[in-house]
């Protein structure tokens, strides 16, 4: 991945006492995002507010759209006009974005979407936390496609992972979704924004060669391909239909194989490069707790208590949600008695853990119907049960 240092104009360097939502906006600006279109919805609104407030001084454009469908549509347009772009929302808004999320995946349009999750289904619990949209992020759009999703556990990581989300999005030309939650979004903690020259960003890669060689697409299961900027004088055709490397519709079995394989494999085939995990005492553990986002912090509290009781328990925190770390779970499942999966939903990522463990160890779901974080005691009880 070719990187440059961040444009200092967008970087508010120094220590801050900031909530996760604001840190998402700061991460976007530091990464070079200069276009934001969104529709305010609790608990993500503060990100839009921060971006709108900072936009004039940074030279970015903020548009409050009429709804979430229009918001993501504007992002697709802005991306092909050469901008790095972002929107934020939560469950109800994300549902409305799903159709054009599929279009963005098909047209290989880079963008970052933060979903500050609140309790659902439907309008559910507007002001209360949840992690119920984990599967929707991957399976929302119809048709085979692959996206990347990241999950921060703190305001600091909201900043760090937004920069990383933009970098992955630019390189793989894919929508990257930040799956955070109301708790992380609304809580204030120390956030240190590094100086611009210490922030590495992947710049927009626009084609600039001869007209006859211009290709907005290349179906080779890899990232790093240039985009074509609308208005630069090249023939320009972008469509949701199955297309050839010039972007024109070719609706055949052969072309579908090329396009779909590329869309899937540029992510899944590079999973080892994309996936980031945070592990603690996994080797030699009898039980491993797999968690993410705010729940991983609650889990650490339970893990510390379990260790005091002499239980050998490790922690695996998913920083990357999608693509899922199936290889690592497979390895772990062959060595431990059980994997415990707490999450603020009725049991979503636990299905991926079960699939990857494939019966080699017990998998225990510690679900929660949303509105609050787990009581650490409940996770501790599950760890105790796991070693029996």
């Amino acid at each position, binding site marked *: 991945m070719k990187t440059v240092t961040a444009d200092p104009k967008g970087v508010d360097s120094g*220590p*801050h*006492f900031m909530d996760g939502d604001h840190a998402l906006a700061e991460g976007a600006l530091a990464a070079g995002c200069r276009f934001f279109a969104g529709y305010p919805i*609790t*608990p993500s609104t503060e990100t839009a507010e921060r971006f709108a407030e900072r936009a004039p001084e940074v030279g970015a454009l903020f548009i409050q759209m009429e709804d979430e469908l229009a918001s993501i549509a504007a992002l697709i347009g802005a991306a092909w006009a050469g901008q790095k772009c972002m929107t934020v929302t939560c469950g109800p808004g994300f549902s409305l974005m799903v159709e054009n999320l599929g279009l963005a995946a098909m047209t290989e349009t880079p963008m970052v979407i933060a979903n500050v999750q609140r309790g659902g289904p439907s309008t559910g619990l507007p*002001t*209360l936390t949840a992690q119920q949209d984990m599967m929707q992020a991957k399976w929302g759009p119809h048709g085979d496609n692959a996206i990347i999703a990241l999950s921060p556990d703190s305001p600091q990581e909201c900043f760090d992972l937004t920069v990383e989300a933009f970098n992955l999005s630019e390189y793989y030309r894919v929508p990257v979704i930040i799956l955070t939650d*109301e*708790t992380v979004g*609304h*809580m*204030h*903690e*120390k956030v240190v924004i590094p100086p611009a020259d210490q922030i590495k960003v992947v710049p927009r890669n626009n084609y600039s060669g001869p007209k006859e060689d211009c290709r907005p697409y290349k179906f080779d299961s890899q990232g790093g391909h240039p985009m074509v900027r609308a208005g630069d004088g090249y023939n320009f055709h972008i469509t949701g239909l199955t297309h050839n490397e010039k972007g024109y519709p070719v609706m055949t079995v052969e072309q579908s194989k090329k396009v779909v394989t590329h869309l899937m494999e540029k992510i899944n085939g590079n999973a080892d490069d994309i996936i980031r995990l945070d592990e603690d005492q996994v080797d030699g553990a009898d039980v491993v707790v797999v968690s993410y986002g*705010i729940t991983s*912090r*609650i889990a*650490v*509290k339970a893990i510390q208590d379990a260790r005091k009781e002499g239980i050998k328990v490790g922690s695996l925190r998913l920083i990357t949600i999608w693509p899922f770390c199936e290889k690592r779970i497979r390895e772990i499942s062959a060595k431990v008695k059980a994997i415990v999966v707490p999450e603020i939903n009725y049991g979503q990522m636990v299905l991926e853990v079960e699939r990857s463990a494939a019966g080699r160890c017990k998998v225990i779901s510690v679900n929660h119907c949303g509105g609050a*974080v787990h009581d*650490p005691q409940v996770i501790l009880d599950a760890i105790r049960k796991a070693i029996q």
Partner: protein
Amino acid sequence: MSTQEIRFSGFGGQGIIRCALITGKALALYDDKFATMTQSFGPEARGSACAAQLVVSDERVLYPYITQPGILLALSQEAYDKYYSELPKGGTLIVEQELVKLRGEHPDLRLMRVPATRYAEELGNRLFTNLVALGFFTAVTNVVTADAMKKALPGLVPERFLKINIKAFDKGYEHGLQMMSQNGEAAS
């Protein structure tokens, strides 16, 4: 590891959230502590009772919410009524002297009263009530240094009111020190 859980409460408009933001920023940025601040976000936060929570620790805060506050700052009757029973024996209860009518002597608690609104009015505007209360809070608890609190103010209060806010803070702080010496307690 020592962990402190603090609840700031009052009614909407008193600057309760701002109190928690200033204290959290002071601790996290200038007192070398870990601080996690959360606030009430539901409809209950708008208009009537309003609360913000701060968890302070020498190590990273894992559980972001308070489980049992050791310190309660209550600037309104409703806030006091709603939250005082959460305090454990020996907990510190700080109330607005003229806005809160106590429901008993609270012999089990360390009770501190501050006429924050009156002092703020003497400084020209009751909008400074929260800073008087924060100065008092800083003096009577062993949580945060006055120096860090003052450093935290720029950016969290309007620049043109920075001086008067510091004055309000000092007023509350001095009153707190006086109360401490009256009670025979040593200042932190």
